[in-house]
């Protein structure tokens, strides 16, 4: 091993953190944003090279950094997470930019990418706690109350730390139960989901997206719980996730505020991913891993369009028809294609994962498939209802131009390309995700159900 070899993973993980430190000292918001954009773009390049290096030379030294490693699970997620952060930055208008927002964005990029690559349990726990504190910072900086969010985050951190401490020490099922509770609290599973729509309403839209969409809880479920949790626990959680997905899909249909609509849509998708993980069959875990990628990209696109609309027209109500299509047709198209991709419309990035998920669920029973088809149906209805509310109707008259800005145009082009062209890579992605799923499930067969985490490394 050449110790002087350039480590792409090191570059990818450290660059946003260095950027956060650097940007914190810049006062003018636009300048801070420019620097942040540079750091995020460089991070995206690093993440893409890391992923390509992994698939061409999996044993390369450039894929390791201490306890962090770009393995089969993490390698494709790095560029996806970098794109999420890049689009969030591109979608933030100049009037809403602040140096501290840029710092939080860069920190979030570093923390989430470190979390997916982290190979030891305690590291992952630490990073999950760190990620949960970023929205609190955002709420504080906006002068909003944090009590509601802390009501959930406090128990989440406590459960995570206590559960991890006892599970590591060799304690049995109840410690795993605490960890599982922490994970489903983080994922917003019913009835512990109240923080999620509230966060979208109170915090910045971008900050909420950066906290919710990476789905770090899926990493925790895959690395910490799946190998050790008993069968009954996973089964019960999968049912809770399915109920959450149905509930939040129904809630998304009746929402009258765009942010709450987005929050419930994201919750429904998250719950489907978690259901697929907890179902722990090779097909369902493959579907979960594919859906994880497609969900991040498609919901990022949807959120991008909503944020751009909010900057122009203020808080968006879904009670009446606004007619924004005539003003910003590009955003309307972006909203529609990203929304349809999130519900698995054919030809988009979400099609194969949704098909895989619903087909894979037959192994659990036809009732599960019917429920998942129902969820896809409700989400599709919610998307088009929101589209009609926002983009049809009598067009507003304005004295200023509301056309898309250059960064917004770039963002929409990136979204459109990703949503359509990434679908063509489905075969390779599914094959690689299937390999990961089998490895994860093999680990579950090899390792004893308890005590878990001996040695702390996985």
């Amino acid at each position, binding site marked *: 091993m050449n110790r002087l070899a350039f480590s792409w993973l090191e570059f990818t993980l450290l660059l946003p953190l260095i950027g956060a430190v650097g940007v914190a000292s810049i006062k003018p918001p636009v300048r801070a944003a420019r620097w942040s954009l540079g750091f995020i773009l460089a991070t995206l390049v690093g993440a893409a090279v890391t992923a390509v290096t992994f698939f061409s030379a999996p044993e390369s030294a450039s894929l390791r950094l201490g306890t962090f490693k770009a393995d089969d699970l993490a390698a494709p997620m790095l560029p996806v997470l970098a794109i999420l952060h890049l689009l969030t930055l591109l979608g933030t208008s100049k009037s809403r930019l602040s140096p501290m927002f840029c710092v939080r964005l860069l920190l979030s990029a570093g923390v989430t990418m470190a979390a997916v690559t982290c190979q030891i349990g305690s590291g992952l726990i630490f990073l999950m706690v760190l990620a949960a504190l970023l929205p609190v910072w955002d709420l504080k900086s906006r*002068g909003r109350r944090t009590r509601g969010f802390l009501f959930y985050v406090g128990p989440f951190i406590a459960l995570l730390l206590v559960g991890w401490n006892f599970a590591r020490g060799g304690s049995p099922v109840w410690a795993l139960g605490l960890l599982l509770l922490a994970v489903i609290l983080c994922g917003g599973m019913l009835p512990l989901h109240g923080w999620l729509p509230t966060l979208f309403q109170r915090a910045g839209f971008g900050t909420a997206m950066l906290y919710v969409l990476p789905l770090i809880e899926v990493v925790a479920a895959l690395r910490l719980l799946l190998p050790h949790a008993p069968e009954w626990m996973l089964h019960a959680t999968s049912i809770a996730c399915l109920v959450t997905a149905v509930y939040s899909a129904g809630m998304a*249909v009746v929402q009258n505020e765009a942010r709450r609509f987005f929050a419930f849509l994201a919750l429904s998708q998250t719950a489907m991913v978690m259901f697929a993980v907890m179902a722990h069959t090779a*097909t369902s875990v493959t579907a979960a891993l594919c859906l994880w990628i497609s969900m991040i990209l498609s919901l990022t696109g949807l959120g991008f369009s909503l944020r751009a609309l909010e900057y122009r027209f203020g808080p968006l109500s879904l009670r009446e*028809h606004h*007619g924004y299509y005539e003003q910003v047709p590009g955003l309307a198209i972006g909203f529609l294609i990203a929304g*349809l991709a999130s519900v698995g419309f054919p030809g988009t990035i979400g099609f194969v994962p949704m*098909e895989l998920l619903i087909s894979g669920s037959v192994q659990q029973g036809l009732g599960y498939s019917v429920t998942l088809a129902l969820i896809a149906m409700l989400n599709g209805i919610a998307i088009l209802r929101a589209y009609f509310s926002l983009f049809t109707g009598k067009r507003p008259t304005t004295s200023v131009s509301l056309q898309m800005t250059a960064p917004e145009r770039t963002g929409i082009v990136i979204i459109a390309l990703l949503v359509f062209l990434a679908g063509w890579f489905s075969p390779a992605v599914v094959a690689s995700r299937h390999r990961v799923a089998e490895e994860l499930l093999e680990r579950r067969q090899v390792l004893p159900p308890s005590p878990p985490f001996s040695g702390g490394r996985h």
Partner: protein
Amino acid sequence: MPNHDQLLTTLGLLIVAAPVGLLATFFVAFLGQHRMQEPTIGRLIQGTIYVSLFAALGAGATMLVRGVPQHAIELGDWVIAPNYHLKFQFILDLLSVSYVMLTLVLCATIGAFSTRYLHRERGYNRFFVLFAIFLTGMVIAALSDTVETLFAGWEMVGLSSVLLIAFFQERPAPPRNGLRVWIVYRVCDAALMLAAILMHEINGEGDFDHLVGRQAWPEHDPLLIGSHFALLGVLFIIAAAGKSALIPFSGWLPRAMEGPTPSSAVFYGALSVHLGVFLLLRISPVLDSAPWLSWLLVMLGLTTAAFAYLAGRVQTDIKSALAFASLTQVGLIIAEIGFGLRYLALIHLLGHACLRTLQFVRAPSLLHDHHQLENAIGMPPRAEPAQWEQRLPIGVQRWLFRFSLERGYLDSILERTIARPFVALFCGFDRWECRWARWLEGPAQPAPTAAEIVTKRS
């Protein structure tokens, strides 16, 4: 491979590739922010349809001359995973070639008509983009040989139809009606998706020939017996009923008339409304698996025909009257399929689609036509002779009139039994959640002043 096989494969692929290429052109134009001129769009549309149509005619002629009853075009396996197999495959046979020719002839007619009809209309480009999605969806669905391929085309047709219903988006009614149609379409999409999954469970693949045998349509090899085939049949019937506006989903058809006349003609008079019929013709051997399925279809068809006849009698606008006249014929075609008269059903479908398209495109000039007729014969046309309804007791006549005027109360039944309880339930949940979130947040605090915000930002 003999030469005519290669020729048929090339022609078959060309039929599909031309509309896909058209969509790709529109996509590239969108990415490049290029606004196409009306003549360019017209030429692109006509050119594409002619290429596809000549390829279809060539394929049909080759099959007739060479005596080829069917020809499968395999595009290979797209995704292969244990328990899941996604394959795209097309087939040229009597049913598919007839239907694709019908599609292309009618789309060519309507395309040429629309370039003049919508000249300088706001949304000209939007109309033709949606028209291209519809054309691609129809061609893919018509030639599909796997249920996934059919599903892809089916969804594209559904989406484009709904967006065209909402074409005049400044008025409130079109988007509202578009959403209603979308809801019905999503229900039938879910049924089709479940049918696809069941097919995978039965055969391990979604190929139709695994289900109906390798003989050319309408012959089939296997005798399909078993409860799972009956369930499959029911799911296909639900899917077809939604798409073809059969009872109890008939309420959407008059709502679909909100769209521009060319789209009403090609979608609800001719092609889209027959897509359900096409599906039932394609999977007709499944209907033979249980006699009660065929009887169910006969009852469904005849009931729909009777209902549509009655509803059509009281319509006061020509497009709605034509829509119900279409539905009457669709009901009869469905009954013919139930009776096992597959050739008759196909011929009925082709003839009816052509006639109805002509009637729809003449609909806007109905008054002009009547004036011409009056001028030609020198007096008003003869009054309509007494109908059988007038021989009924007056009470029954009134009831029938009310029943027809209210369109069989189908919409209100669905609204009262499904939509309202659903909305009330989830709105109740939403109110409860908002109260809970407010309670957690504590008493409302005054909004920060602008000075405070600036201080915090800095």
